[in-house]
Protein backbone atom coordinates (compact mmCIF):
# COMPACT_ATOMS: atom_id res chain seq x y z
CA UNK A 1 0.00 0.00 0.00
CA UNK A 2 2.81 2.36 0.92
CA UNK A 3 4.47 1.63 -2.40
CA UNK A 4 1.35 2.62 -4.30
CA UNK A 5 0.90 5.75 -2.15
CA UNK A 6 4.50 6.74 -2.74
CA UNK A 7 4.11 6.13 -6.44
CA UNK A 8 1.02 8.38 -6.54
CA UNK A 9 2.76 11.17 -4.62
CA UNK A 10 5.71 10.92 -7.00
CA UNK A 11 3.47 10.88 -10.05
CA UNK A 12 1.67 14.13 -9.30
CA UNK A 13 4.86 16.03 -8.43
CA UNK A 14 6.56 14.35 -11.37
CA UNK A 15 3.88 15.73 -13.68
CA UNK A 16 4.72 19.25 -12.52
CA UNK A 17 8.46 18.69 -12.86
CA UNK A 18 7.76 17.34 -16.34
CA UNK A 19 5.90 20.52 -17.31
CA UNK A 20 8.76 22.69 -16.08
CA UNK A 21 11.27 20.42 -17.81
CA UNK A 22 9.19 20.64 -20.98
CA UNK A 23 9.35 24.43 -20.81
CA UNK A 24 13.12 24.37 -20.37
CA UNK A 25 13.58 21.88 -23.20
CA UNK A 26 11.41 23.91 -25.59
CA UNK A 27 13.57 26.96 -24.94
CA UNK A 28 16.76 24.96 -25.16
CA UNK A 29 15.72 23.49 -28.50
CA UNK A 30 14.72 26.81 -29.97
CA UNK A 31 17.55 29.05 -28.77
CA UNK A 32 20.17 26.88 -27.04
CA UNK A 33 19.60 28.77 -23.82
CA UNK A 34 19.03 27.26 -20.39
CA UNK A 35 16.28 29.56 -19.22
CA UNK A 36 16.66 30.26 -15.50
CA UNK A 37 13.98 32.92 -15.80
CA UNK A 38 11.46 30.11 -16.31
CA UNK A 39 10.58 29.98 -12.60
CA UNK A 40 10.06 33.75 -12.65
CA UNK A 41 7.93 33.60 -15.77
CA UNK A 42 5.79 30.87 -14.23
CA UNK A 43 5.40 32.97 -11.07
CA UNK A 44 4.41 36.06 -13.02
CA UNK A 45 1.85 34.19 -15.09
CA UNK A 46 0.45 32.55 -11.96
CA UNK A 47 0.07 36.01 -10.40
CA UNK A 48 -1.78 37.08 -13.56
CA UNK A 49 -4.08 34.11 -13.04
CA UNK A 50 -4.46 35.15 -9.40
CA UNK A 51 -5.53 38.65 -10.45
CA UNK A 52 -8.08 37.26 -12.90
CA UNK A 53 -9.38 34.90 -10.23
CA UNK A 54 -9.80 37.80 -7.80
CA UNK A 55 -11.95 39.58 -10.37
CA UNK A 56 -13.91 36.68 -11.82
CA UNK A 57 -13.93 34.45 -8.73
CA UNK A 58 -13.24 31.52 -10.97
CA UNK A 59 -10.13 29.40 -10.93
CA UNK A 60 -11.08 27.82 -14.24
CA UNK A 61 -11.43 31.14 -16.07
CA UNK A 62 -8.13 32.31 -14.65
CA UNK A 63 -6.12 29.40 -16.08
CA UNK A 64 -6.38 30.34 -19.79
CA UNK A 65 -5.41 33.91 -18.85
CA UNK A 66 -2.35 32.62 -17.02
CA UNK A 67 -1.41 30.47 -20.02
CA UNK A 68 -1.82 33.25 -22.57
CA UNK A 69 0.01 35.61 -20.22
CA UNK A 70 2.83 33.13 -19.79
CA UNK A 71 3.17 32.71 -23.55
CA UNK A 72 3.16 36.47 -24.10
CA UNK A 73 5.79 37.10 -21.42
CA UNK A 74 8.05 34.44 -22.89
CA UNK A 75 7.63 35.75 -26.43
CA UNK A 76 8.40 39.25 -25.23
CA UNK A 77 11.55 38.11 -23.43
CA UNK A 78 12.83 36.27 -26.47
CA UNK A 79 12.00 39.00 -28.96
CA UNK A 80 13.39 41.86 -26.89
CA UNK A 81 16.22 40.48 -24.81
CA UNK A 82 17.42 37.16 -26.15
CA UNK A 83 17.42 38.35 -29.74
CA UNK A 84 19.56 41.39 -29.01
CA UNK A 85 21.82 39.12 -26.99
CA UNK A 86 22.14 36.71 -29.91
CA UNK A 87 22.91 39.56 -32.31
CA UNK A 88 25.84 40.60 -30.18
CA UNK A 89 26.88 37.16 -29.12
CA UNK A 90 30.52 36.31 -29.34
CA UNK A 91 32.33 33.11 -29.79
CA UNK A 92 33.88 31.21 -26.95
CA UNK A 93 33.05 30.77 -23.30
CA UNK A 94 31.14 34.02 -23.07
CA UNK A 95 28.55 32.94 -25.61
CA UNK A 96 27.71 29.97 -23.41
CA UNK A 97 27.58 31.81 -20.15
CA UNK A 98 26.10 35.15 -21.20
CA UNK A 99 22.58 33.84 -21.84
CA UNK A 100 22.69 32.06 -18.46
CA UNK A 101 23.48 35.38 -16.79
CA UNK A 102 20.84 37.19 -18.83
CA UNK A 103 18.15 34.76 -17.74
CA UNK A 104 19.37 34.92 -14.12
CA UNK A 105 19.05 38.70 -14.38
CA UNK A 106 15.55 38.25 -15.73
CA UNK A 107 14.67 35.94 -12.86
CA UNK A 108 15.77 38.64 -10.42
CA UNK A 109 13.92 41.30 -12.37
CA UNK A 110 10.66 39.37 -12.40
CA UNK A 111 10.93 38.50 -8.71
CA UNK A 112 11.50 42.15 -7.82
CA UNK A 113 8.61 43.21 -10.03
CA UNK A 114 6.19 40.72 -8.52
CA UNK A 115 7.39 41.79 -5.07
CA UNK A 116 6.72 45.41 -5.97
CA UNK A 117 3.25 44.73 -7.32
CA UNK A 118 1.94 42.02 -5.02
CA UNK A 119 4.32 42.35 -2.07
CA UNK A 120 6.64 39.75 -0.56
CA UNK A 121 3.76 37.97 1.04
CA UNK A 122 1.87 34.71 0.70
CA UNK A 123 -1.36 34.96 -1.23
CA UNK A 124 -4.08 32.44 -1.99
CA UNK A 125 -4.63 31.06 -5.42
CA UNK A 126 -7.29 28.51 -4.70
CA UNK A 127 -8.80 25.77 -6.75
CA UNK A 128 -12.45 24.86 -6.14
CA UNK A 129 -11.47 21.20 -6.21
CA UNK A 130 -11.20 19.37 -2.96
CA UNK A 131 -7.74 18.92 -1.57
CA UNK A 132 -8.92 15.69 0.04
CA UNK A 133 -7.54 12.43 -1.27
CA UNK A 134 -9.76 9.82 -2.94
CA UNK A 135 -10.97 6.94 -0.84
CA UNK A 136 -10.30 3.41 -1.92
CA UNK A 137 -12.24 1.28 0.46
CA UNK A 138 -11.27 2.53 3.87
CA UNK A 139 -7.92 3.85 2.77
CA UNK A 140 -7.51 7.50 1.77
CA UNK A 141 -4.91 7.67 -0.95
CA UNK A 142 -2.64 10.74 -1.07
CA UNK A 143 -4.10 11.73 -4.40
CA UNK A 144 -6.73 14.44 -4.55
CA UNK A 145 -8.91 15.76 -7.40
CA UNK A 146 -6.41 18.62 -7.72
CA UNK A 147 -3.62 16.07 -8.22
CA UNK A 148 -5.75 14.41 -10.87
CA UNK A 149 -6.13 17.75 -12.65
CA UNK A 150 -2.37 18.25 -12.43
CA UNK A 151 -1.71 14.92 -14.10
CA UNK A 152 -4.47 15.41 -16.69
CA UNK A 153 -3.30 18.97 -17.39
CA UNK A 154 0.28 17.83 -17.83
CA UNK A 155 -0.76 14.98 -20.14
CA UNK A 156 -2.93 17.38 -22.14
CA UNK A 157 -0.08 19.87 -22.61
CA UNK A 158 2.28 17.10 -23.62
CA UNK A 159 -0.27 15.66 -26.02
CA UNK A 160 -0.83 19.03 -27.66
CA UNK A 161 2.89 19.62 -28.07
CA UNK A 162 3.45 16.12 -29.43
CA UNK A 163 0.71 16.67 -31.97
CA UNK A 164 2.07 20.04 -33.05
CA UNK A 165 5.62 18.77 -33.40
CA UNK A 166 4.70 15.56 -35.17
CA UNK A 167 1.85 16.52 -37.44
CA UNK A 168 1.92 20.21 -38.30
CA UNK A 169 4.01 22.41 -40.57
CA UNK A 170 4.70 24.63 -37.58
CA UNK A 171 6.11 21.64 -35.76
CA UNK A 172 8.31 20.77 -38.69
CA UNK A 173 9.56 24.35 -38.85
CA UNK A 174 10.24 24.34 -35.12
CA UNK A 175 12.26 21.19 -35.38
CA UNK A 176 14.13 22.37 -38.44
CA UNK A 177 14.92 25.78 -36.96
CA UNK A 178 16.28 24.18 -33.84
CA UNK A 179 18.54 21.60 -35.46
CA UNK A 180 19.60 23.27 -38.70
CA UNK A 181 19.03 27.01 -38.36
CA UNK A 182 21.14 27.97 -41.37
CA UNK A 183 19.55 25.48 -43.75
CA UNK A 184 16.12 26.40 -42.41
CA UNK A 185 16.79 30.03 -43.13
CA UNK A 186 17.80 29.16 -46.68
CA UNK A 187 14.68 27.08 -47.01
CA UNK A 188 12.62 30.17 -46.30
CA UNK A 189 11.75 29.54 -42.65
CA UNK A 190 11.69 32.73 -40.63
CA UNK A 191 13.91 31.32 -37.95
CA UNK A 192 13.65 34.24 -35.53
CA UNK A 193 9.90 34.13 -35.49
CA UNK A 194 9.85 30.37 -35.17
CA UNK A 195 12.18 30.58 -32.18
CA UNK A 196 9.95 33.09 -30.47
CA UNK A 197 7.04 30.71 -30.97
CA UNK A 198 9.14 28.04 -29.27
CA UNK A 199 9.61 30.40 -26.33
CA UNK A 200 5.88 31.15 -26.21
CA UNK A 201 5.08 27.43 -26.04
CA UNK A 202 7.57 27.10 -23.21
CA UNK A 203 6.02 30.05 -21.37
CA UNK A 204 2.61 28.45 -21.71
CA UNK A 205 3.85 25.13 -20.33
CA UNK A 206 5.44 26.91 -17.36
CA UNK A 207 2.21 28.82 -16.73
CA UNK A 208 0.23 25.57 -16.66
CA UNK A 209 2.70 24.17 -14.14
CA UNK A 210 2.41 27.26 -11.93
CA UNK A 211 -1.36 27.53 -12.12
CA UNK A 212 -1.91 23.85 -11.38
CA UNK A 213 0.59 23.34 -8.59
CA UNK A 214 0.06 26.60 -6.68
CA UNK A 215 -3.34 25.64 -5.19
CA UNK A 216 -1.61 22.69 -3.50
CA UNK A 217 1.01 24.98 -1.95
CA UNK A 218 1.03 28.79 -1.89
CA UNK A 219 1.94 31.77 -4.00
CA UNK A 220 4.77 34.23 -3.30
CA UNK A 221 7.49 35.77 -5.48
CA UNK A 222 9.76 32.86 -4.55
CA UNK A 223 7.29 30.00 -4.27
CA UNK A 224 8.38 28.21 -7.46
CA UNK A 225 12.14 28.41 -6.82
CA UNK A 226 12.40 24.74 -5.94
CA UNK A 227 10.50 23.85 -9.06
CA UNK A 228 13.12 25.54 -11.21
CA UNK A 229 15.83 23.27 -9.85
CA UNK A 230 13.67 20.15 -10.11
CA UNK A 231 12.57 21.13 -13.61
CA UNK A 232 16.11 21.70 -14.75
CA UNK A 233 17.35 18.49 -13.23
CA UNK A 234 14.45 16.64 -14.88
CA UNK A 235 15.29 18.24 -18.23
CA UNK A 236 18.94 17.25 -17.91
CA UNK A 237 17.98 13.72 -16.94
CA UNK A 238 15.76 13.55 -20.00
CA UNK A 239 18.48 14.79 -22.28
CA UNK A 240 17.58 18.47 -22.82
CA UNK A 241 16.78 17.98 -26.50
CA UNK A 242 13.95 15.60 -26.21
CA UNK A 243 10.37 16.50 -25.29
CA UNK A 244 9.60 12.90 -24.41
CA UNK A 245 12.84 12.84 -22.46
CA UNK A 246 11.67 15.86 -20.43
CA UNK A 247 8.44 14.10 -19.55
CA UNK A 248 10.21 10.89 -18.63
CA UNK A 249 12.84 12.85 -16.71
CA UNK A 250 10.15 14.69 -14.75
CA UNK A 251 8.28 11.53 -13.86
CA UNK A 252 11.47 9.68 -13.01
CA UNK A 253 12.60 12.50 -10.76
CA UNK A 254 9.21 12.81 -9.09
CA UNK A 255 8.91 9.10 -8.39
CA UNK A 256 12.59 8.75 -7.49
CA UNK A 257 12.23 11.67 -5.13
CA UNK A 258 9.17 10.20 -3.46
CA UNK A 259 10.87 6.84 -2.93
CA UNK A 260 14.07 8.38 -1.61
CA UNK A 261 12.03 10.44 0.86
CA UNK A 262 10.00 7.41 1.84
CA UNK A 263 12.85 4.99 2.30
CA UNK A 264 15.93 7.08 3.07
CA UNK A 265 14.47 10.06 4.88
CA UNK A 266 13.17 13.57 4.36
CA UNK A 267 16.46 15.14 5.40
CA UNK A 268 18.10 14.38 2.09
CA UNK A 269 15.48 16.31 0.08
CA UNK A 270 17.90 18.77 -1.42
CA UNK A 271 20.63 16.24 -2.05
CA UNK A 272 18.20 13.78 -3.60
CA UNK A 273 18.00 15.64 -6.90
CA UNK A 274 21.79 15.66 -7.06
CA UNK A 275 22.01 11.96 -6.33
CA UNK A 276 19.43 11.04 -8.97
CA UNK A 277 21.11 13.31 -11.51
CA UNK A 278 24.57 11.90 -10.90
CA UNK A 279 23.31 8.33 -11.17
CA UNK A 280 21.56 9.04 -14.48
CA UNK A 281 24.42 11.01 -15.97
CA UNK A 282 26.94 8.42 -14.90
CA UNK A 283 25.13 5.83 -16.94
CA UNK A 284 24.17 8.17 -19.77
CA UNK A 285 26.21 11.40 -19.85
CA UNK A 286 23.76 12.93 -22.30
CA UNK A 287 20.61 12.06 -20.43
CA UNK A 288 18.09 9.35 -21.21
CA UNK A 289 17.09 10.56 -24.65
CA UNK A 290 19.61 13.26 -25.43
CA UNK A 291 21.03 13.37 -28.92
CA UNK A 292 24.53 14.15 -30.05
CA UNK A 293 23.19 17.22 -31.84
CA UNK A 294 22.77 18.83 -28.46
CA UNK A 295 26.47 18.86 -28.01
CA UNK A 296 27.70 22.21 -29.06
CA UNK A 297 30.72 23.09 -27.04
CA UNK A 298 33.06 20.36 -28.19
Amino acid at each position, binding site marked *: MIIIDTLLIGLSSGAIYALMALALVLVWRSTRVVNFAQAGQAILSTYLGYEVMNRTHSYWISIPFAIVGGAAIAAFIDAVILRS*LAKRSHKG*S*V*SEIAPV*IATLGLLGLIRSLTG*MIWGNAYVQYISPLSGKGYMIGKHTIPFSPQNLIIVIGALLVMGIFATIFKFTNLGLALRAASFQPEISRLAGIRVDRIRTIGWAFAGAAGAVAGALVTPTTYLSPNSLDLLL*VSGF*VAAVIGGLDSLIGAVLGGLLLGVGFAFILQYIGASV*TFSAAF*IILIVVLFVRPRGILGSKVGRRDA
Partner: protein
Amino acid sequence: MRKSKALSALTFLAIGLFLLGLSNFVDELRVYQGAQIAVYVIAISSIILLTGYSGQISLGHGALMAIGGYAAVLSYTYWHLPVLLAFTVGALAAALGGFILGMAAARLSGPYLAGTTLALAVGLPSLANQFHILGGEGGLSFDIGEAPKWIANKTGGDFTQYKWFFWVSTVCALVTIWFIKNLLQSRFGRTWRAVRGNPSAAALSGINIGRSKVLAFTVSSALAGLAGALLAMLLGLVAPMAFTLTLSFTLVTGAVLAGVTNLAGSIVGAVVLVVIPEITDVVATHLGGSEKITANLPGLITSVLLILTVIFAPNGPKLHIRKKVHN
Protein backbone atom coordinates in the same frame (compact mmCIF):
# COMPACT_ATOMS: atom_id res chain seq x y z
CA MET B 1 61.70 35.58 -18.90
CA ARG B 2 63.18 35.37 -15.44
CA LYS B 3 63.75 39.09 -15.39
CA SER B 4 60.12 39.79 -16.23
CA LYS B 5 59.04 37.44 -13.47
CA ALA B 6 61.14 39.33 -10.99
CA LEU B 7 59.67 42.58 -12.24
CA SER B 8 56.15 41.33 -12.00
CA ALA B 9 56.84 39.96 -8.51
CA LEU B 10 58.05 43.40 -7.53
CA THR B 11 54.91 44.93 -9.01
CA PHE B 12 52.79 42.64 -6.91
CA LEU B 13 54.79 43.39 -3.80
CA ALA B 14 54.39 47.12 -4.45
CA ILE B 15 50.65 46.80 -4.96
CA GLY B 16 50.43 44.75 -1.79
CA LEU B 17 52.34 47.25 0.31
CA PHE B 18 50.36 50.09 -1.17
CA LEU B 19 47.03 48.43 -0.35
CA LEU B 20 48.10 47.49 3.16
CA GLY B 21 49.35 51.00 3.74
CA LEU B 22 46.12 52.39 2.44
CA SER B 23 44.20 50.46 5.07
CA ASN B 24 45.52 52.95 7.63
CA PHE B 25 43.77 55.82 5.94
CA VAL B 26 40.29 54.52 5.25
CA ASP B 27 37.52 53.94 7.74
CA GLU B 28 36.46 50.58 9.07
CA LEU B 29 33.46 50.19 6.78
CA ARG B 30 35.62 50.55 3.68
CA VAL B 31 38.29 48.30 5.12
CA TYR B 32 35.70 45.55 5.51
CA GLN B 33 34.47 46.13 1.99
CA GLY B 34 38.05 45.98 0.78
CA ALA B 35 38.41 42.59 2.45
CA GLN B 36 35.16 41.48 0.84
CA ILE B 37 36.47 42.60 -2.55
CA ALA B 38 39.65 40.59 -2.05
CA VAL B 39 37.65 37.45 -1.23
CA TYR B 40 35.44 37.93 -4.29
CA VAL B 41 38.55 38.47 -6.43
CA ILE B 42 39.73 34.99 -5.48
CA ALA B 43 36.32 33.41 -6.01
CA ILE B 44 35.79 35.12 -9.36
CA SER B 45 39.30 34.21 -10.53
CA SER B 46 38.51 30.60 -9.80
CA ILE B 47 35.51 30.83 -12.15
CA ILE B 48 37.52 32.70 -14.77
CA LEU B 49 40.17 30.00 -14.68
CA LEU B 50 37.53 27.32 -15.15
CA THR B 51 35.22 28.96 -17.64
CA GLY B 52 37.44 31.42 -19.44
CA TYR B 53 40.50 29.26 -19.79
CA SER B 54 39.27 25.70 -19.65
CA GLY B 55 35.81 26.21 -21.15
CA GLN B 56 33.81 24.51 -18.39
CA ILE B 57 30.78 26.00 -16.66
CA SER B 58 30.07 25.74 -12.96
CA LEU B 59 26.97 26.97 -11.19
CA GLY B 60 28.10 25.22 -8.04
CA HIS B 61 31.14 27.10 -6.87
CA GLY B 62 29.20 28.23 -3.82
CA ALA B 63 29.17 24.58 -2.74
CA LEU B 64 32.93 24.29 -3.24
CA MET B 65 33.36 27.44 -1.17
CA ALA B 66 31.29 25.75 1.52
CA ILE B 67 33.63 22.75 1.49
CA GLY B 68 36.60 25.09 1.88
CA GLY B 69 34.93 27.09 4.61
CA TYR B 70 33.85 24.08 6.66
CA ALA B 71 37.20 22.31 6.27
CA ALA B 72 39.10 25.42 7.36
CA VAL B 73 36.89 26.02 10.39
CA LEU B 74 36.92 22.37 11.45
CA SER B 75 40.70 22.09 11.20
CA TYR B 76 41.10 25.38 13.04
CA THR B 77 38.70 24.41 15.80
CA TYR B 78 39.52 20.73 16.30
CA TRP B 79 43.13 20.41 15.16
CA HIS B 80 44.06 23.88 16.40
CA LEU B 81 45.94 24.57 13.19
CA PRO B 82 47.39 28.03 12.60
CA VAL B 83 45.02 30.14 10.53
CA LEU B 84 47.00 30.06 7.30
CA LEU B 85 47.36 26.30 7.54
CA ALA B 86 43.61 26.01 8.16
CA PHE B 87 43.01 28.03 4.99
CA THR B 88 45.30 25.63 3.14
CA VAL B 89 43.32 22.68 4.46
CA GLY B 90 40.18 24.42 3.21
CA ALA B 91 41.67 24.84 -0.24
CA LEU B 92 42.87 21.23 -0.33
CA ALA B 93 39.51 19.85 0.81
CA ALA B 94 37.74 21.83 -1.89
CA ALA B 95 40.33 20.66 -4.40
CA LEU B 96 39.53 17.07 -3.49
CA GLY B 97 35.81 17.77 -3.91
CA GLY B 98 36.54 19.53 -7.17
CA PHE B 99 38.67 16.61 -8.38
CA ILE B 100 35.79 14.19 -7.86
CA LEU B 101 33.31 16.59 -9.43
CA GLY B 102 35.78 17.27 -12.24
CA MET B 103 35.95 13.55 -13.05
CA ALA B 104 32.20 13.63 -13.61
CA ALA B 105 32.41 17.02 -15.29
CA ALA B 106 34.94 15.90 -17.89
CA ARG B 107 32.31 13.56 -19.27
CA LEU B 108 29.65 16.26 -19.48
CA SER B 109 29.15 19.09 -21.90
CA GLY B 110 27.93 22.64 -21.15
CA PRO B 111 24.33 22.46 -19.99
CA TYR B 112 24.70 19.01 -18.43
CA LEU B 113 27.58 20.27 -16.37
CA ALA B 114 25.60 23.38 -15.48
CA GLY B 115 22.75 21.15 -14.29
CA THR B 116 24.99 18.91 -12.23
CA THR B 117 26.78 21.78 -10.53
CA LEU B 118 23.47 23.55 -9.94
CA ALA B 119 22.09 20.48 -8.19
CA LEU B 120 25.27 20.34 -6.13
CA ALA B 121 24.92 23.97 -5.10
CA VAL B 122 21.40 23.26 -3.87
CA GLY B 123 22.15 19.89 -2.32
CA LEU B 124 25.47 20.18 -0.60
CA PRO B 125 25.18 23.06 1.90
CA SER B 126 21.97 21.66 3.39
CA LEU B 127 23.88 18.47 4.21
CA ALA B 128 25.52 20.43 7.02
CA ASN B 129 22.30 19.96 8.94
CA GLN B 130 22.78 16.20 8.87
CA PHE B 131 25.98 16.15 10.84
CA HIS B 132 26.17 17.43 14.35
CA ILE B 133 29.85 18.30 14.00
CA LEU B 134 28.97 20.80 11.27
CA GLY B 135 26.83 22.88 13.60
CA GLY B 136 23.53 22.76 11.72
CA GLU B 137 21.71 25.84 10.52
CA GLY B 138 23.43 28.15 13.02
CA GLY B 139 26.79 26.97 11.76
CA LEU B 140 30.17 26.93 13.47
CA SER B 141 31.77 30.10 14.70
CA PHE B 142 35.22 31.00 13.49
CA ASP B 143 37.22 33.74 15.16
CA ILE B 144 40.77 34.08 13.88
CA GLY B 145 41.48 36.65 16.56
CA GLU B 146 43.29 39.92 16.27
CA ALA B 147 46.41 40.77 14.28
CA PRO B 148 49.66 39.50 15.82
CA LYS B 149 51.35 42.09 18.02
CA TRP B 150 54.44 42.45 15.82
CA ILE B 151 52.23 43.62 12.96
CA ALA B 152 49.77 45.68 14.96
CA ASN B 153 52.50 47.51 16.88
CA LYS B 154 54.48 48.42 13.78
CA THR B 155 51.59 50.09 12.01
CA GLY B 156 50.58 52.03 15.09
CA GLY B 157 47.11 53.27 15.85
CA ASP B 158 44.06 51.13 16.30
CA PHE B 159 44.49 47.85 14.46
CA THR B 160 40.90 46.63 14.20
CA GLN B 161 39.92 43.08 13.37
CA TYR B 162 38.41 44.23 10.08
CA LYS B 163 41.78 45.67 9.15
CA TRP B 164 43.40 42.36 9.94
CA PHE B 165 40.79 40.62 7.75
CA PHE B 166 41.69 43.07 5.00
CA TRP B 167 45.39 42.32 5.33
CA VAL B 168 44.93 38.55 5.29
CA SER B 169 42.52 38.50 2.38
CA THR B 170 44.46 41.03 0.32
CA VAL B 171 47.65 39.04 0.66
CA CYS B 172 45.77 35.85 -0.24
CA ALA B 173 44.20 37.55 -3.26
CA LEU B 174 47.51 38.85 -4.55
CA VAL B 175 49.17 35.48 -4.10
CA THR B 176 46.24 33.85 -5.90
CA ILE B 177 46.44 36.16 -8.90
CA TRP B 178 50.18 35.73 -9.01
CA PHE B 179 49.73 31.97 -8.92
CA ILE B 180 47.09 31.90 -11.65
CA LYS B 181 49.10 34.19 -13.88
CA ASN B 182 52.10 31.91 -13.68
CA LEU B 183 49.98 28.81 -14.06
CA LEU B 184 48.42 30.17 -17.22
CA GLN B 185 51.84 30.77 -18.70
CA SER B 186 52.99 27.29 -17.83
CA ARG B 187 52.49 24.12 -19.81
CA PHE B 188 49.11 23.62 -18.11
CA GLY B 189 47.84 27.01 -19.14
CA ARG B 190 48.83 26.44 -22.74
CA THR B 191 47.16 23.05 -22.68
CA TRP B 192 43.91 24.53 -21.35
CA ARG B 193 43.87 27.20 -24.01
CA ALA B 194 44.57 24.64 -26.69
CA VAL B 195 41.71 22.44 -25.46
CA ARG B 196 39.34 25.36 -25.22
CA GLY B 197 40.33 26.70 -28.65
CA ASN B 198 40.19 23.49 -30.63
CA PRO B 199 39.70 20.25 -28.73
CA SER B 200 40.11 18.01 -31.76
CA ALA B 201 43.45 19.56 -32.71
CA ALA B 202 44.55 19.42 -29.08
CA ALA B 203 43.70 15.74 -28.88
CA LEU B 204 45.58 15.06 -32.12
CA SER B 205 48.66 16.76 -30.76
CA GLY B 206 48.66 14.35 -27.87
CA ILE B 207 46.93 16.32 -25.14
CA ASN B 208 44.79 14.28 -22.79
CA ILE B 209 41.64 16.41 -22.85
CA GLY B 210 39.94 14.68 -19.96
CA ARG B 211 42.94 15.00 -17.69
CA SER B 212 43.40 18.63 -18.64
CA LYS B 213 39.78 19.43 -17.77
CA VAL B 214 39.92 17.58 -14.45
CA LEU B 215 43.06 19.46 -13.52
CA ALA B 216 41.44 22.81 -14.30
CA PHE B 217 38.43 21.86 -12.22
CA THR B 218 40.65 20.81 -9.32
CA VAL B 219 42.71 24.00 -9.31
CA SER B 220 39.63 26.16 -9.68
CA SER B 221 38.00 24.33 -6.76
CA ALA B 222 41.06 24.83 -4.57
CA LEU B 223 40.80 28.57 -5.15
CA ALA B 224 37.07 28.50 -4.46
CA GLY B 225 37.86 26.64 -1.25
CA LEU B 226 40.33 29.32 -0.22
CA ALA B 227 37.71 31.97 -0.95
CA GLY B 228 35.23 30.01 1.15
CA ALA B 229 37.66 29.84 4.06
CA LEU B 230 38.27 33.59 3.82
CA LEU B 231 34.54 34.25 3.63
CA ALA B 232 34.15 32.22 6.81
CA MET B 233 36.79 34.43 8.39
CA LEU B 234 34.91 37.61 7.39
CA LEU B 235 31.59 36.28 8.65
CA GLY B 236 33.05 34.78 11.78
CA LEU B 237 31.20 31.57 11.00
CA VAL B 238 30.32 28.93 8.47
CA ALA B 239 26.62 28.21 8.02
CA PRO B 240 24.62 26.63 5.21
CA MET B 241 22.75 29.89 4.61
CA ALA B 242 26.02 31.62 3.69
CA PHE B 243 26.60 29.31 0.73
CA THR B 244 23.28 29.40 -1.05
CA LEU B 245 22.55 29.11 -4.74
CA THR B 246 22.47 32.90 -4.77
CA LEU B 247 26.17 32.96 -3.90
CA SER B 248 27.00 30.62 -6.79
CA PHE B 249 24.98 32.79 -9.14
CA THR B 250 26.62 35.94 -7.77
CA LEU B 251 30.06 34.55 -8.54
CA VAL B 252 29.16 33.67 -12.13
CA THR B 253 27.71 37.16 -12.45
CA GLY B 254 30.94 38.63 -11.15
CA ALA B 255 32.90 36.56 -13.67
CA VAL B 256 30.77 37.86 -16.53
CA LEU B 257 31.09 41.43 -15.31
CA ALA B 258 34.84 40.80 -15.23
CA GLY B 259 34.88 39.33 -18.72
CA VAL B 260 35.29 35.60 -18.36
CA THR B 261 38.64 35.44 -20.10
CA ASN B 262 40.11 38.40 -18.30
CA LEU B 263 41.90 37.65 -15.05
CA ALA B 264 42.54 41.29 -14.21
CA GLY B 265 38.83 41.93 -14.67
CA SER B 266 38.12 39.85 -11.57
CA ILE B 267 38.90 42.97 -9.56
CA VAL B 268 36.36 44.98 -11.49
CA GLY B 269 33.81 42.21 -11.03
CA ALA B 270 34.50 42.02 -7.30
CA VAL B 271 34.25 45.78 -6.80
CA VAL B 272 30.95 45.88 -8.65
CA LEU B 273 29.53 43.03 -6.54
CA VAL B 274 30.37 44.89 -3.33
CA VAL B 275 29.48 48.40 -4.44
CA ILE B 276 26.20 47.72 -6.28
CA PRO B 277 24.13 46.79 -3.20
CA GLU B 278 25.27 49.95 -1.48
CA ILE B 279 24.42 52.18 -4.44
CA THR B 280 21.04 50.57 -5.04
CA ASP B 281 20.24 50.89 -1.34
CA VAL B 282 21.00 54.61 -1.44
CA VAL B 283 18.96 55.06 -4.63
CA ALA B 284 16.03 53.14 -3.17
CA THR B 285 16.13 55.17 0.04
CA HIS B 286 16.18 58.45 -1.88
CA LEU B 287 13.39 57.51 -4.26
CA GLY B 288 11.25 56.33 -1.40
CA GLY B 289 7.76 54.98 -2.00
CA SER B 290 5.79 52.22 -0.35
CA GLU B 291 7.43 49.35 1.54
CA LYS B 292 6.88 47.03 -1.39
CA ILE B 293 8.73 49.39 -3.72
CA THR B 294 11.70 50.24 -1.49
CA ALA B 295 12.25 46.62 -0.50
CA ASN B 296 12.37 45.40 -4.08
CA LEU B 297 13.98 48.35 -5.82
CA PRO B 298 17.61 47.34 -5.14
CA GLY B 299 16.98 43.89 -6.63
CA LEU B 300 15.26 45.47 -9.61
CA ILE B 301 18.11 47.88 -10.33
CA THR B 302 20.74 45.16 -9.97
CA SER B 303 18.87 42.84 -12.32
CA VAL B 304 18.38 45.51 -14.96
CA LEU B 305 22.06 46.46 -14.80
CA LEU B 306 23.00 42.82 -15.13
CA ILE B 307 20.84 42.29 -18.20
CA LEU B 308 22.12 45.46 -19.84
CA THR B 309 25.74 44.50 -19.13
CA VAL B 310 25.31 41.07 -20.63
CA ILE B 311 23.68 42.48 -23.75
CA PHE B 312 25.98 45.43 -24.32
CA ALA B 313 29.29 44.33 -22.81
CA PRO B 314 29.16 40.54 -22.55
CA ASN B 315 32.94 40.26 -22.62
CA GLY B 316 33.54 42.52 -19.70
CA PRO B 317 35.30 45.85 -19.78
CA LYS B 318 38.61 45.02 -21.37
CA LEU B 319 38.46 42.07 -23.63
CA HIS B 320 38.64 43.93 -26.92
CA ILE B 321 42.08 45.25 -26.03
CA ARG B 322 43.38 41.94 -24.79
CA LYS B 323 41.98 39.97 -27.67
CA LYS B 324 44.36 41.67 -30.05
CA VAL B 325 47.30 40.71 -27.88
CA HIS B 326 46.22 37.09 -27.85
CA ASN B 327 45.83 36.87 -31.58
